């Protein structure tokens, strides 16, 4: 199976004039792009603006994308260049940092910096979502939890996960799907309730 085939399918649709397919690409990569851009700009709001600009640039440049590299690699380069240009144009020096889950001090320090620029409603929702996802993962059966963590955290392919868990690829696919469904059920409840609570705070 060719790597990046799902992205290529969406890219082809965008190139044929289907703008809805570009929404799916943005939804999939917005977190990664914002995380990437935040190495260069100081606050989340600015990172979001730069990410938005990067996505628009990517959309306009899609006719030149020939599928010779993975879509995210291509998007990554656009985002980096956009962020660098933003830094230069605003006469700021880039701030480089990596969020490292293995380094709690840095993680909590960064958490504190981000909190300064966020609103209470956003924080409540964000924290609730994060804790919901974590508790949902903890509640998963062992085989489902292992499969989804190997996929999302370690970035292993289904074949590699199958080899690691000693089961067929089809089983891996099913386990990951069931894990996502279980987490998603909890997440939807939070989204519905979380929005209401956020408005109350506002």
């Amino acid at each position, binding site marked *: 199976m060719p790597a990046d085939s799902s992205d290529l399918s969406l890219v082809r649709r965008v190139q044929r004039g289907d703008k809805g397919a570009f929404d799916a690409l943005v939804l999939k990569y917005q977190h990664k792009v914002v995380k990437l851009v935040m190495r260069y700009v100081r606050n989340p709001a600015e990172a979001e603006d730069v990410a938005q600009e990067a996505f628009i640039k990517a959309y306009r440049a899609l006719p030149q994308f020939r599928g010779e590299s993975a879509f995210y690699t291509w998007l990554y380069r656009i985002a980096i260049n956009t962020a660098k240009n933003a830094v230069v144009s605003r006469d700021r020096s880039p701030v480089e940092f990596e969020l490292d889950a293995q380094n709690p001090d840095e993680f909590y320090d960064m958490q504190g910096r981000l909190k300064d620029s966020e609103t209470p409603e956003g924080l409540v929702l964000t924290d609730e979502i994060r804790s919901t996802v974590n508790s949902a993962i903890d509640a998963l059966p062992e085989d489902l939890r292992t499969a989804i963590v190997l996929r999302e955290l370690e970035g292993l392919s289904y074949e590699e996960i199958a080899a690691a868990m000693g089961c067929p690829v089809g089983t891996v696919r099913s386990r990951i799907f069931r894990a996502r469904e279980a987490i998603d059920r909890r997440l939807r409840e939070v*989204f519905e309730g979380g929005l209401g609570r956020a408005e109350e705070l506002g």
Partner: protein
Amino acid sequence: MNNEELDSQLSAMFDDELPAAECELLARRLARDDGLKARWGRYAVIGACIRMERGAQAVMLSSAARVADGHAGASSGERRPHGDLASRVSRLVADEPLLAGAGFKGVGERLANSAVSRWWQPLAGGAVVAAGVAAAAILWLRARSPDAPIVGQTQIIAETGNLPRALPNARTVVSAALPSGGAAGMARDVSDSVGSPADADSYVVPAAVSPAPFAPPLELANFVVAHSEYSMPLLRRSALSALVADGLTGGDTGADAADTAQSAASAESSAAADSGHAAGSSSRTLDASYAHYAH
């Protein structure tokens, strides 16, 4: 396909683990189905949470929530200081012009269609332009009166009176037609090789005559003279001789001139047809032509 199977496919597609053929179908549905798109967005949120993408998460989760509930808050006018990146990008992209519209070739199609397979495109474009120019020229010519001479066209008329043998009287009249002069164009006597210099630059206004009886033989004779340089020397001589003979016999009436020119033309055409034949055959044709011209 039931929903569970569809969602299972969506999960596999999110991980780039769905076969390409199924990806094509699902991508089409994903681009149009808001519910499926919302689920796709939540899968991204789950991955971001597991990877502890705190920086991105702080910005994006509120927008993911909006995506999840189908943009419920979008119309309520609520203002979120951060987030909703996907919705904003979507709105901006909606305002962008289509990348290619119909006929745009995607990645795979573009790679498949090499330059060789499009070799005819520049030719077709050139043919269209040429056809357009030709059509415009035809329409422009047809729009003009049949009597009206073409603007700027110089018509060379060889009077059939005398040719080299009778050089003292030979002259070529070049008539420069006026744009709106109809048949009464201004004739300029430009080459009077043996006439007086004063006459060479004189202008004469020819009498208005109906072009029907006069012009055709002159035109035909002119045609013969003009094209004789492309014919065989023997035939050229025969054509010219025929014209001279016609002039000597006083046959410069329209009918005779027409007959002369047509005969010359037929001789030329028959020569062209017989050019591959033996010399005897050609000479017989020439003899016949001479006989005809000499009456």
